[in-house]
């Protein structure tokens, strides 16, 4: 590096820009988020305002001009909802659930993992045993069981997703914290009057962040996929808040009679979202992985 001081943030962004795939993925992701946030402004119809749905417009193919006067570019579903509008509203819900679950799982898992790695002893054994045990069960099974036990609802679903996923964060944070614990700067910080909790969360945790961020991107994509799967199985969100998974599920029965668009278009939206997040995550992983550094 010839420049006098280059902030790590700058360097990270510069390196990120070198990968064309990653830049395209990030732009697409930004576009998707923008579309989801601006959904009420850019959709011709509020898909959940029952008064404005026209049943005679139900299950029309893409390009059909509805009785409201606008064209349904992606067709309509069984209730006569404009699919383009429904997809954007569904994206909102899927993103919301995925992000909230991801953030809570991150906070819970990172705290538990750092605590276990930092304190050590009995507490570490106990926490990590529980987490190892949980990791030996597939996340989908755990989420399925919890969603079934807790019942339907957004927060119940988020609780199920968090329980299924926090263990991955805890595992990662624990590994990183154990490695950091033995370093000199931690010894130095502990010899000052700073409280151990402060050292753990203000000094050790930030140094454990890079691997956690990598896990976080993958897990947000996973929780969106998991939410869609649960909603598809009828264990996810209530009908009043249809996510992409539920739109796909609603269209499934019509697929057999050739009305593909009700399931296919929400499905494409879901896949693009997940693949894009995974691509961004891959790039971040490659950049933060010290073993691949030249």
């Amino acid at each position, binding site marked *: 590096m010839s420049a006098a001081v280059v902030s790590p943030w700058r360097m990270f962004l510069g390196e990120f820009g070198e990968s064309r795939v990653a830049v395209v993925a990030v732009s697409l992701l930004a576009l998707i988020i923008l579309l989801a946030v601006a959904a009420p402004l850019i959709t011709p119809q509020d898909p959940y305002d029952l008064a404005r749905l026209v049943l005679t417009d139900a299950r029309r193919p893409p390009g059909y001009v509805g009785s409201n006067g606008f064209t349904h570019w992606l067709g309509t579903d069984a209730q006569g909802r404009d699919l383009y509008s429904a997809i954007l509203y569904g994206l909102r819900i899927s993103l919301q659930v995925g992000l909230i679950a991801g953030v809570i799982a991150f906070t819970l898992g990172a705290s538990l993992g750092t605590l276990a790695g930092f304190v050590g002893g009995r507490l570490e054994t106990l926490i990590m045993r529980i987490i190892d045990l949980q990791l030996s069960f597939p996340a989908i099974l755990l989420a399925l069981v919890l969603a079934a*036990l807790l019942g339907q609802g957004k927060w119940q679903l988020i609780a199920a997703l968090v329980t299924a996923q926090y263990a991955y964060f805890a595992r990662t944070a624990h590994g990183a914290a154990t490695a950091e614990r033995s370093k000199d700067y931690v010894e130095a910080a502990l010899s000052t009057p700073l409280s151990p909790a402060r050292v753990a969360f203000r000094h050790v945790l930030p140094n454990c962040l890079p691997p956690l961020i990598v896990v976080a991107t993958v897990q947000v994509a996973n929780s969106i996929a998991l939410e869609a799967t649960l909603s598809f199985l009828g264990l996810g969100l209530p009908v009043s808040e249809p996510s992409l998974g539920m739109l796909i599920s609603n269209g499934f029965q019509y*697929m057999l009679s050739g009305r593909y668009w009700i399931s296919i278009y929400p499905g494409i939206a879901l896949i693009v979202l997940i693949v894009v997040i*995974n691509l961004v995550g891959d790039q971040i992983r490659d950049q933060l992985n010290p073993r691949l550094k030249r």
Partner: protein
Amino acid sequence: MLSFVIQRLMQAAVVMLVISAMVFIGVYAVGNPIDVMIGPDATQEIRLATIHAYGLDQPLWQQYFTFLQRLAHGDFGRSFVYNTSVLQLVISRLPATLEITIAAVLGAALLGVPLGMYAGYAPHSRIAKTIMGVSVLGFSVPTFWIGLLLIFTFAVNLGVLPAGGRGDTATVMGVEWSFLTFNGLTHMLLPVVNLALFKLALMIRLARAGTREVMLTDMVRFARAAGESEWTILRRHVLRLIAIPLVTVFGLEFGSTLAFAVVTETIFSWPGVGKLVIDSISSLDRPVMVAYLMLVSLLFITINFTVDIAYVALDPRLRARKTT
């Protein structure tokens, strides 16, 4: 070694006990099971009699104790919906799940290992890149969505394969199997492909990573110097070396494939255990839910226990560390 086995066995027993308590509280104590069993217009006497008959007036710990006692006798109760013994119900559905699970795991291994080895042998070839691209899709696209696409393509558009059900079955030793009839096989194809894709992606990645590592070792160089053909090197040496981690993952994945079968069975209306449990969740058939959860937990704990013991038996370094 023996003390380690005993220690692990006791741990497994404790875990099983904790899970049974969680399942019990989750399924029986949350919500009111009595509302599911009798109609809302039942008289007060019937209500009290039912509560008494199921022991719901007992304190919670006593109900749990009775529940454990019955479990120990292999009695999971009767299904509210089918009115048959739950254990029999689950066991009668098991062959359907087993046949697609085994076919999927075997198929993923038999196809994934050669593909992955090729991708690791010639990592820069176009074919290798295509293989890896497909494996990325297998990882990130949700199973249920692939299932929908399969149905849409092969059952609806092309009309060449059935969209669901088991088709004709042949009975061998009192158990019905689909894979023994041609019609059954055509019904099996799509669910098996659906279930296998994720495992296939995993096998490809593992085999590729292993092959890339082994190809760089001196052993391969010496084998080449000795005049062995590339094919012999791959088959004789590389495959043997990467086989150990692959076999481990293969075993572990078998359990998680059973879990994923829930999704696949629902899409293809495959009458296996997974479909049974989803149906029981939507019809609030609690005894079936409990039996499924307990059996699956038992399965996973057994798999983990076996893997732990196998590792320690195979790796002396672990043995030294674990016993201290």
